[in-house]
Every structure is written in structure tokens, then in C-alpha cells.
């Protein structure tokens, strides 16, 4: 599969995520859109890792392990995402306890 397809796909997902972050006001949905962005990145990384593997194989290196690092990076991103989610949701819940809303438009107390 040409790498372009994958670039296009994951950029599309990434952009949808960004648009979501910019247009939605519910903190939880914003957070989910961020997760979507991370997943788009993951997909792209895997595709690239397979592309590099393909290149190595084409260069007659059949036993190549090229591209392993890309997949491991994805693994680390998942690890980080998990940690981030636990903290993020804790923050959102804490916020909810105080103001009973998760609308980011309420986040304007600091402006004054």
C-alpha cells in the first residue's frame, strides 16, 4: 500500500481531532479528540515502520528488523496516554465536583 494513503488517512484523523479540540466545549470530548490525535500518530508511525522495513527488504536485507523502533514508539505513546488519561480524568472529576460542569467556557475565572 503506498505510504501516501496512510499519510492521508492519519492526517485526516489527526485533523478531525484538532477540529474537535477547537470546536467542542465539553472537556471530556476535547480530551477524547486528543486521544484521537494520538491514535492518528500511532497509525502513521506503524505505517512508516513498515515502510522502512519494506525498504530494507528491497535492499536485500531480508532479516532486517528495521521499523521495530517505530512500533515500540507507538507502545510508549500508549503507555503515556494511559498515564495521561488517569491524571486528566482525575482533574476533570475534581473540576466537576466543584462547579458541576465540564464546559471549558466556564474556565474564565482566571481572566479577571
Amino acid at each position, binding site marked *: 500500500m503506498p*505510504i501516501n494513503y496512510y499519510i492521508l488517512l492519519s*492526517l485526516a484523523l489527526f485533523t478531525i481531532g484538532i477540529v474537535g479540540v477547537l470546536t467542542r466545549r465539553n472537556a471530556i470530548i476535547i480530551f477524547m479528540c486528543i486521544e484521537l490525535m494520538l491514535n492518528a500518530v500511532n497509525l502513521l508511525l506503524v505505517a512508516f515502520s513498515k515502510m522502512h522495513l519494506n525498504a530494507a527488504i528491497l535492499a536485500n536485507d531480508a532479516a532486517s528488523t528495521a521499523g521495530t523502533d517505530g512500533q515500540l514508539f507507538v507502545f510508549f505513546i500508549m503507555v503515556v496516554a*494511559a*498515564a495521561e488519561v488517569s491524571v486528566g480524568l482525575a482533574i476533570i472529576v475534581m473540576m466537576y465536583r466543584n462547579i458541576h460542569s465540564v464546559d471549558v467556557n466556564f474556565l474564565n475565572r482566571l481572566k479577571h
Partner: protein
Amino acid sequence: MNIIELLFGTLSVLAIFSALMLVTSKNPVYSVLWLIVTFFAISGHYILLNAQFLAIVNIIVYAGAIMVLFLFVIMLMNLNKETEPQKNRWLKLAGAVAGGCLLLVLVAALKDVDSKKPENFALLNGGNTGLIKNLGKELFTTYVVPFEISSVLFLSAMIGAVVLGKKEKQNEAAH
């Protein structure tokens, strides 16, 4: 068109469609469910790319753990009502247009990537690098230091949950 291309197309359409639904759904619970569908579609892509380990981990971590937490929080807060007030339509449109422009720019910038060259093809259904054995070997040799360090991340997330979640004693006294 062979089966692989068919699958690729289906999964891509599914992924993008459900991502769009995620962004446009009014009800947060639907958003969560659509996001889960997206994750499954992406996992499907991983399987196509023969990155089996990531496919499974993606489901376990994202769909199985992270999204459960999301759903959990949403249910706890009882956000099923469409609490999000109607936003300015123009603003929404502006957001969409901005996103579209961003996409266009990025794609236009990247369209030069030569798709004819054989090196620029992602290898489908082949290559053993995505198997758990190879990844594990690499993870515990070359990447063992970052692996160990990432435990710090979890420890701090754990402390975070304690710090943020624990009830304050003074707080209770005040109420």
C-alpha cells in the same frame, strides 16, 4: 482490487466516519462509543500491517481501559443530557474550515512524497517486526532504559490519582 485493498478501504472509511461522528455527536456517550469504533478500525489497520502486538495492545489499552474510564466518568457525571449549549454556528463552521485548511496544507505539503517508488510502500501482511517476540526482544535490550523510566510516569500518575482524588479533611469539616 484485491481483498487487502478492500479491507484497507473499508477500515479507512469506517475510521474516518466514526471519527467524524465522535466530533459531531451531541451526546458524550455516543462520542465514546464512536471513538471505540475508531480504535477498532485502527486496530484493523494494524493487523493489516501485521503489527499484531500493537493491534491487541491498542484494544486492551485504549478500548479496554482508557475508554472504560471515559465512559465511567461520563456516567458518573450523568452527562447524558445534552448539556452543551448550542454554540455559535459560525464558530463551528470556522473551526471546520480551519481544520480543513490545515489538512489541505499538510496534504499539499506531503503530496510530493513519491508514491511510485517501491521503497515508499508500506509492507502489508508481511514482515515479522510486529510480532511480539521481536518487539519484546528489542524492547528489553535497546529500549530497556526508557521502558524502565516509563515506570516513573506511572508512579506519578498514581500519586496524581491519590493527590487529586483523596478527600481533604478540612474540606469535610467545612461542610
